[in-house]
């Protein structure tokens, strides 16, 4: 039995390793190809080269896309986190008729396929003369990102001692003061985590942005353009940089979410 156990455990470990290899090979590949001189990388690999990074560095369109991405990402992070905080607190504190409708509306957007979201947004926003603007991308990403912010903050609120609020009220604090001095400080790590994570989601979202952005393309939409046009390892260079910035945001969020627990 013990022997069989070891073989099975070994096989299971091997299986996990293969899954991780499958998941991460394209990501790692993109890094390697971005530093490789070949236009069509294959085995054996070509020479080390930073050519593709130089090309994107010198491309004004990439810079413009980058600027749009950052503007959209920052705005969306703030909007989604504010909306998500309100939603999370509402779910935490109140019971009302139609609450399940409220929650469904708040949390369902990520389950709608992006092409359908894109089409619906485009049709609606062009009707109100907003399609093709940066605002339209912000509106669409606000819809898609606020559920994530809400979920993150809601989880944190559920860790709060419910007596904390009551104590604040008993000591004469009104609802606003309680929000300002008790709830927001308690939820602060989650609020920052929500800001970073929604920003990262917005950074990588290309499909809906592609439908509604018109000429104000964000960087991921530029990548889609590159994919449709000529084959170019520039995609790998942009992708690697985007990956590094997203990862920085996620690790910051992770540290923020973890540290209060460790201190206790």
């Amino acid at each position: 039995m013990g022997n069989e156990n070891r073989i099975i455990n070994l096989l299971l470990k091997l299986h996990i390793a293969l899954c991780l290899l499958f998941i991460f090979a394209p990501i790692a590949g993109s890094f390697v190809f971005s530093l490789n001189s070949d236009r069509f990388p294959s085995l054996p690999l070509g020479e080390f080269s930073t050519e593709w990074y130089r090309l994107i560095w010198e491309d004004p369109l990439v810079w413009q896309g980058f600027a749009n991405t950052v503007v959209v990402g920052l705005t969306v992070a703030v909007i989604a986190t504010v909306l998500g905080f309100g939603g999370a607190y509402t779910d935490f504190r109140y019971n009302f008729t139609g609450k399940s409708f409220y929650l469904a509306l708040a949390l369902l957007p990520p389950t709608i396929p992006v092409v359908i979201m894109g089409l619906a947004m485009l049709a609606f926003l062009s009707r109100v003369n907003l399609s093709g603007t940066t605002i339209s991308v912000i509106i669409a990403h606000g819809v898609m990102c606020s559920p994530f912010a809400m979920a993150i903050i809601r989880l944190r609120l559920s860790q709060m001692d419910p007596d904390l609020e009551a104590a604040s009220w008993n000591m004469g604090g009104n609802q606003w003061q309680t929000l300002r001095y008790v709830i927001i400080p308690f939820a602060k790590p989650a609020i920052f985590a929500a800001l970073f994570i929604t920003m990262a989601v917005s950074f990588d979202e290309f499909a809906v942005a592609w439908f509604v952005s018109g000429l104000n393309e964000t960087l991921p939409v530029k990548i889609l353009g590159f994919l449709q046009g000529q084959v170019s390892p520039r995609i790998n260079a942009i992708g690697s940089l985007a990956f590094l910035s997203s990862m920085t945001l996620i690790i910051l969020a992770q540290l923020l979410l973890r540290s209060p627990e460790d201190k206790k």
Partner: protein
Amino acid sequence: MTKRPTLFSLILSMPLLLWQLLFFLFPLLFLVAISFWTVRNFQMQPDLNFGNWERVLTRGVFWDAYFRTMILATAAAAITSIIAFPASYAISFKMSEKAKRWMIFILIIPFFTSYLVRVYSLQVFLSDAGIVNAAFGYLGLGPFPMLNNAFGIIVGMITLTLPLVILLQTFSLNFVNRDLIEAAHNLRCGRLRTVFAVIVPSAKVGLVIAALFAFILSFGDFVSPLYLGGGNPPTLSIMITDFTKSGQQWPRAAVVAIMMIITLLTAAFAAITYAYKERGR
């Protein structure tokens, strides 16, 4: 805690509600409306015309795409679930708490990489002169065509869904009562039988929901069919982008989109009904 909503509660709860009503629910309802509109001189005009529905639903092209998308998404969901299960099982039952947390963190990473970049990278791996075929070449095998066919599409869809499915399965396996497994072992239930007779049934809801998510994501994905499958013959999501981007046929795209939403809702309803069935037995 009054019964009537206070100003405070309204200020906190209403912004999200208004935003999602105006920018999420309303656009989706508007999509239903424009499916009855007509296009003249590249301009959409409000109308109550069933022509778009008739044109789309009576064409073989649509139904071919519909069933192809259905088969691809179902296959991707099934294959991903089968590949994911041993991994989730090992993470949930064989790893220390610390290792578990690390695995979860590692599996979250792919969500924050660009799916487009991963698909582009997969093109390099899977092309006839690509990395995988070069490796096969060293063994004197191949080259195998892995791009611009169903294989490429499925590989792309698994890339998209595998991390999520492993995570969801792991979470549901974490909730399986460990005493049940102990009891099964004490009753001399074999290892494999324990998995299929004890663990899978008690984690059924989570496993079905994981597969459902894989199906939803694959069904709506247009990147893999386009860049790994070659885009021809089209899937439903490619039809939508084609109708919208090149043909200016938004009403017809809306018809396809509504058909997709109906299908997904049906699938979700069926899956959840199935997941909760027989639980009280």
